[in-house]
């Protein structure tokens, strides 16, 4: 039954190209951040959903993403200690663990993943996109750093659509608050043509990213659109959207995937290529970061491939058609923030998941519900039941956490996943018998 087949050469060849490139890019941003005191570049802390990277770059600033730092620390097994440090300072067990990992990191000398101290931010830019905790988080950071703070108020898509009024409201704030503060902090005058250039490059990279994500419609899928895609999203979701490096990266990645499709190859995993795709799943919710590989292994060992996920849309729902638009730069930035996955209402999220189950011909929907993330988790059971009803594909529910290692119970998660996979198999056989008779 096991499809485990470690082919070290395959892993290496993957690492030779896009994987290594991606790693180099992420590391280079950490180096740019930690060398800011020497280079004199200004640091802007902001969040992945609704980040205005193209704009930040117009002012020569470097982007620092606290939730990405928490993820990096979790994957290096550092977040547990950081969270406990934050709890000693009085942050409750139930608070978002990204926040606590970040606060713990600050208390422990704010050491970046490259081992060097992270400079204090010169500016805090909060694009508020559906996560209430982000607001409280930046309040804590503002108190700590006492630097200029801008809150870009992004209206929630309560009715599931973006109105002109909402767009105008965001653009007005960009013009009157965000851009003037950036000019003031950086000492650089805003140049809209520079922004247009960045956005043109964004759109190019976005085209290739969408192509890569949609390649999972192939059978077998050449990619894992959840675990594997995390790596593909790194440049787009962090500091590289709008850069030539990102354009180049996604070209290389796309070429690699094209080759995989031509050879009918399955996704690459830490233990080699998946030889036989047995289950195609759609996943809702962020991954667990502290046990990322262990969690992934529970899937690839059983031949389960994720063909679409919503987490890979938190930094932009590009597969639904949105592109950064150089002809309408500010309006398009507004649309980008407004359209973020976490800023969508429940019916819209259900629609998206339903579309994924159908278009990617998935066997089912799995929800990884995050204990400390209410903005993602609230309503997920209702969503699951609705999708089951609409598509007939079975749903399953597991619970883990983002970066708190105490909330990953491997035995329970594995037990449930195995049951789920076997249930899919049994239903499939049941259907075959029913069709035959």
């Amino acid at each position, binding site marked *: 039954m096991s499809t485990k087949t470690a082919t070290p050469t395959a892993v290496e060849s993957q690492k030779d190209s896009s994987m290594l490139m991606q790693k180099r890019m992420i590391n280079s941003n950490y180096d740019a951040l930690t060398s800011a005191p020497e280079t004199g570049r200004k640091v802007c802390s902001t969040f992945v959903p609704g980040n205005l990277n193209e704009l930040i770059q117009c002012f020569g600033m470097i982007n620092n993403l606290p939730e990405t730092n928490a993820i990096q620390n979790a994957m290096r097994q550092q977040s547990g200690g950081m969270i406990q440090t934050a709890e000693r300072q009085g942050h409750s067990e139930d608070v978002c663990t990204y926040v606590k990992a970040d606060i713990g990191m600050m208390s422990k000398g704010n050491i970046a993943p490259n081992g060097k101290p992270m400079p204090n931010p010169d500016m805090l830019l909060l694009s508020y996109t559906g996560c209430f905790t982000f607001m409280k988080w930046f309040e804590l950071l503002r108190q700590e750093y006492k630097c200029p703070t801008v809150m870009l108020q992004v209206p929630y898509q309560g009715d599931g659509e973006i109105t002109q009024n909402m767009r105008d409201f965001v653009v007005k704030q960009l013009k009157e608050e965000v851009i003037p503060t950036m000019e003031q902090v950086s000492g650089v005058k805003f140049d809209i043509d520079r922004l247009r250039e960045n956005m043109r490059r964004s759109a190019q990279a976005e085209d290739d990213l969408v192509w890569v994500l949609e390649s999972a419609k192939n059978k077998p899928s050449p990619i894992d659109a959840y675990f594997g895609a995390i790596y593909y999203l790194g440049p787009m979701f962090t500091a590289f959207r709008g850069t030539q490096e990102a354009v180049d990266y996604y070209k290389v990645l796309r070429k690699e995937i094209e080759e995989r499709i031509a050879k009918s190859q399955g996704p690459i995993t830490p233990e080699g290529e998946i030889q036989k795709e047995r289950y195609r799943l759609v996943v809702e919710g962020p991954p667990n970061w502290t046990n990322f590989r262990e969690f992934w292994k529970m899937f690839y060992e059983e031949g389960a491939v994720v063909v679409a996920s919503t987490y890979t849309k938190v930094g932009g729902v590009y597969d639904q058609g949105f592109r950064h638009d150089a002809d309408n730069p500010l309006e398009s930035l507004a649309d980008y923030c407004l359209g973020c996955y976490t800023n969508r209402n429940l019916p819209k999220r259900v629609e998206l998941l339903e579309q994924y189950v159908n278009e990617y011909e998935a066997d089912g929907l799995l929800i990884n519900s995050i204990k400390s993330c209410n903005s993602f988790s609230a309503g997920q059971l209702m969503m699951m039941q609705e999708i089951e009803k609409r598509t007939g594909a079975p749903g399953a529910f597991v619970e883990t956490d983002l970066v708190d290692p105490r909330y990953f119970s491997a035995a329970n998660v594995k*037990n449930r996943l195995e049951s789920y996979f076997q*249930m899919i198999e049994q239903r499939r056989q*049941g259907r075959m018998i029913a069709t035959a008779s």
Partner: protein
Amino acid sequence: MKCFIGIDLGSTTTKSVVMDETGKPLGHGITNSRSNYDTAALVAKTEALISARLVLLRKALERDAQLTLAIDAILEGLERRFRLAQFMVQLGNLERLCSEKVQENQARHGESDLQGALDDTFTNLKVELAKLFDPGASRKSDFFRDLAGSVYMEVAETQADAHKVNQDTLINIYDKSIIEVENIPPQVDMSETFLTALDDLLNAGEIGPEDYAEVQRTLKAVLAIELEETYVVGTGYGRARLPFPKEHIRSEILCHGLGAHLMYPNTRTVLDIGGQDTKGIQVDENGIVVNFQMNDRCAAGCGRYLGYIADEMQLGLHELGPMAMKSTKQVTINSTCTVFAGAELRDRLSLGEKREDIMAGLHRAIILRAMSILSRSGGVDNELTFTGGVAKNEAAVKELRKLVEDNYGDLKINIDPDSIFTGALGAAEFARRAVEA
């Protein structure tokens, strides 16, 4: 004859079912789960094979034998004598291991009459424990450790005083030895023990010489039938530790679903409350699982919750249900945390609430939690089959009936006296189908 065996290795007990080629269950076996899973599985399987022999013997006697005594009485006597012989083998092992520990103790701590105390303890134990197998005697448990343990504690107390040795030392010796005894694989020669048991019946005058000859002839024929272990399927929490290849292991969700379907073909919803998990399972008309939910992260509200409460109140597990049935008033108890429920219980007692009312509240708490899991799995459809150790508890059943009626209307609720074997039954059927297919 071909036999198909299912083994359900649960957190508290290990169950086994032996099935014949037509899908009819022949025998059931149960034992307490212990640190050595291989032994637990082997004991449960051996027990199921013993029970299968008895079933075959009954059939053969019913078919051909001309007897004076009722078949029921003969089989009851035969099984009782057989169990006694098994029990005495284990008691012999216990005595040997305890003796070894006494020698070690003696070597370290010098002269005392520990060996004398132990010898007298066992002389008494053999007499007292044999009484448990007298005609008409009732046993509080089927497990050696429970029966031997409770009598040992009583006898050791008296003997420690008589021989002027430390009572705790005598009890420690038992505690260390019982674990080893349980991990010794079963050693009883089945044919020889059955035939000796029959001789014992004759010698005790429980059976006449004519019946004896008739039964002996039939018994020999039944013992000559080879019970071929054609295919074994394992399930339950410890399934990954079972000494089987992966194809022989099925998720307990699937096994419970199929097992419940075999017991009651009209089952559409299964509720299983086991030692550490509660499962809500929806099955179709073929017993195929279409959806399921389990408790998350925490086992409050499962069988162990009742075990903990029994310990807190210094009651036997089987005494909780009958006590709760005497309740006349509703007392609300939380079900969020087992340990907190213990504290709440003492608090209620100090406020003057009656034990039976508090007990009823605790049973209600468990079922309320189960109802939440059921609704998450898709609700309750007619018929509902209730399985697992907690299904034997009348107070839990009463609360379930009430809450199902309140929430879903007048539905048929099935509870089989052998419901604890549901998972093993499903596993046995999977074994049968694996060969059939």
